[in-house]
């Protein structure tokens, strides 16, 4: 088994695949990349049992064969090379030898048969999406997902394909983001929950990509295919909470404000907030928004005033500044709207401008009850 490949081309692909590999594997074989050579096509795969990702690379070769190569060692080696063709040659003594312009390097390889084979998705449904749209959907929702092992469904992003729209939802019960595209529909409604890790991998590869992504899925697994890459993963098992029911319908108080100004105010004021609750207080009356924070434990406090456009009753409401910052940061619009009803009901953030046709973003954030009210 012998092939020749460009060093940087290989490195670029392996770095993506390397993201699948866990740092502490119970199965040593998972510390390897699986190489499957078929003449001019080399398929490289990595897996953590839950997620398997593979990429097909073009190489110069007349051979066939399969081996598992230590991932960390190979990545470190490739990083150290300037761009050049490398020759990989499988030797008899259970090593694979890399020849570069500078010299020779031998890596002990493992048996390819030990490497887990990815699941076959039977009775699959199918949807096609532009790469960048999927990446944006992931990017908008994944930060809102939870990390609570007691509620694993909330640790993933909910994918819901309906006849009216594609909907993506992330929530940790404190905040919620719903990203929907009414410009893409399906005639076969379906829904599933994607775990975080493969989503982060997809987001990294797909951002800005105009290529189509084919999504095949059944009850337990999903497969994403695009360009030369395939990612198969197990879905999160369970029922996603009824997110529509928690979005308040009646929100008479509407604040419209410059996103960047509001964000930098929140950032400054939050430095003075209590380190446990991160609570900041928004007091809105007329066209003035008063943002304040106080940490009673250290007698620190801060207060800022911003002019805003406000329609509704005078209102004082507390929010976790971390959540607000995350949400404001995630949006890209110039202006945002916050719709509110009562100090104990969720506030709804939406961008005013900058959306594509058919693109909708709704962000919910639950308040922090004010202590001395």
């Amino acid at each position: 088994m012998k092939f020749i490949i460009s060093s940087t081309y290989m490195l670029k692909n392996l770095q993506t695949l390397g993201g699948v590999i866990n740092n502490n594997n119970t199965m040593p074989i998972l510390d390897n990349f699986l190489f499957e050579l078929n003449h001019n096509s080399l398929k490289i795969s990595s897996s953590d049992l839950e997620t398997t990702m593979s990429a097909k690379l073009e190489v110069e070769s007349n051979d066939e064969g399969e081996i598992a190569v230590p991932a960390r060692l190979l990545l470190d080696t490739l990083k150290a090379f300037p761009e050049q063709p490398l020759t990989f040659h499988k030797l008899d003594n259970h090593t694979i030898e890399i020849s570069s312009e500078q010299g020779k390097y031998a890596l002990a390889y493992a048996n390819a048969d030990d490497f887990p084979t990815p699941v076959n998705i039977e009775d699959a449904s199918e949807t096609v999406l532009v790469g960048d749209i999927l990446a944006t959907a992931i990017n908008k929702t994944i930060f809102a997902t939870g990390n609570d092992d007691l509620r694993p469904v909330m640790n993933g992003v909910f994918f819901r394909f309906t006849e009216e729209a594609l909907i993506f939802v992330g929530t940790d019960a404190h905040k919620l983001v719903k990203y929907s595209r009414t410009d893409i529909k399906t005639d076969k409604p379906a829904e599933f929950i994607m775990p975080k890790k493969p989503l982060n991998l997809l987001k990294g590869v797909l951002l800005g990509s105009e290529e189509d992504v084919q999504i095949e899925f059944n009850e337990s697994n999903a497969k994403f295919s695009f360009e030369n890459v395939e990612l198969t993963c197990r879905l999160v098992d369970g029922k996603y909470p009824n997110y529509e029911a928690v979005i308040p319908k009646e929100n008479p108080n509407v604040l419209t404000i410059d996103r960047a100004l509001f964000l930098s105010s929140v950032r400054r004021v939050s430095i003075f907030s209590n380190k446990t609750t991160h609570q900041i207080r928004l007091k809105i009356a007329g066209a003035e928004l008063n943002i304040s924070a106080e940490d009673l434990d250290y007698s620190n406090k801060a207060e800022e005033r911003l002019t805003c456009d406000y329609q509704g009753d005078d209102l004082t409401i507390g929010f976790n500044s971390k959540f607000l910052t995350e949400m404001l940061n995630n949006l890209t619009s110039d202006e945002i709207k916050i719709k509110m009803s009562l100090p104990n009901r969720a506030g709804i953030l939406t961008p005013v401008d900058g959306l594509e046709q058919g693109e909708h973003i709704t962000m919910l954030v639950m308040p922090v009850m004010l202590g001395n009210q």
Partner: protein
Amino acid sequence: MFKDCFNHEGFLSLCVFLSMDFREHLRKIIHVDMDAFYASVEQLDDPSLKGKALAVGGSSKRGVVAAASYEARKHGVKSAMSGKQAARLCPHLIFVRPRFERYKDISQQIRKIFFEYTDLVEPLSLDEAYLDVTVNKFNFPSATVLAREIREKIKTKTGLNASAGISINKFIAKVASDINKPNGQKTIPPEDVIAFLEQLDIRKFYGVGKVTQDKMYRLGIFTGADLKLKTLDYLQEHFGKSGLHYYNVVRGIHLSEVKTSRIRKSLGAERTFSENISSEIYMLAKLEDIAEEVERRLKTSRVAGKTITLKLKYSDFSVQTRSKTLKLFIASKALIMEETRTLLYQEPIKDSIRLLGISLSNLNTDQSKSVKTSAILKEEQLKLPF
């Protein structure tokens, strides 16, 4: 033997026993005990009672003597004795009603004096406390002198006498404080500890009550020296888990620290009804009140609990408890009621009820957690109602 020493306490004692430099780890513990505290306070406040045989409490029909003055003790009057019996032993005995508020007041003054010396103060009751003066605020090396000073200060500030015992652990200090009582003190220095324990009557050992005492006597153990002759295996065979404790204690090993605050284990409230109730709806209404009280107490103490217990006392005085451990700490009335309701309807009520109670245990008294909850109780991050 070694296997048995690998439980927590056992392992520690083994370290002390075998390898640690004994001297370096010696602590200086003072046990301060007020002399006939309640009775002395009464004599202090009413000089006409001075020098007289006096009993606090015990005057009512079924009353029990809470404390007796030294004059009364001479006649054999002891605390926990029925008033009737005390009057028989000492016909001229004067009975006084206890005034706990006043005792508490004085106890506070005394505690303040302790804190001038060290922050490691473990109050046992209103009239006794352990002080760890190994490191003290005056950096003074002699615990004996400190004890004398503390006793003098108590005398000048309150006019009351205190006795003290000074030694290397709580148990020996406590035994020692009894030796020169009243108004005296006794130091058992490290080098005398072993000899002191060997001559000590087995009844005086920490953890030896009436039952254990009888058992010890039957096994031919009358003094520390007798106890010391027994092997650990032998003691564990006869006394189970406590065997190791006795084995250690007689060798001067008693690692119990001076605990500055007793950690609360549970918190709750209960109500006895003037008339027994049998309707569950009526019970729920009562439980609402109790839950509100529990919430108030939880907030005052700034704790939350994970295990909720519903206590039911039936008209025949039999008591039933139903409890449940939750995944999260709860402290609010709404959540307490939610769980209480499930517990109430868990199984049918078999009889009419005279008392209902709700308590929370498994409290988050661990410091890091309590800081967190106190903040959350004040400024609560709300959740989406999934």
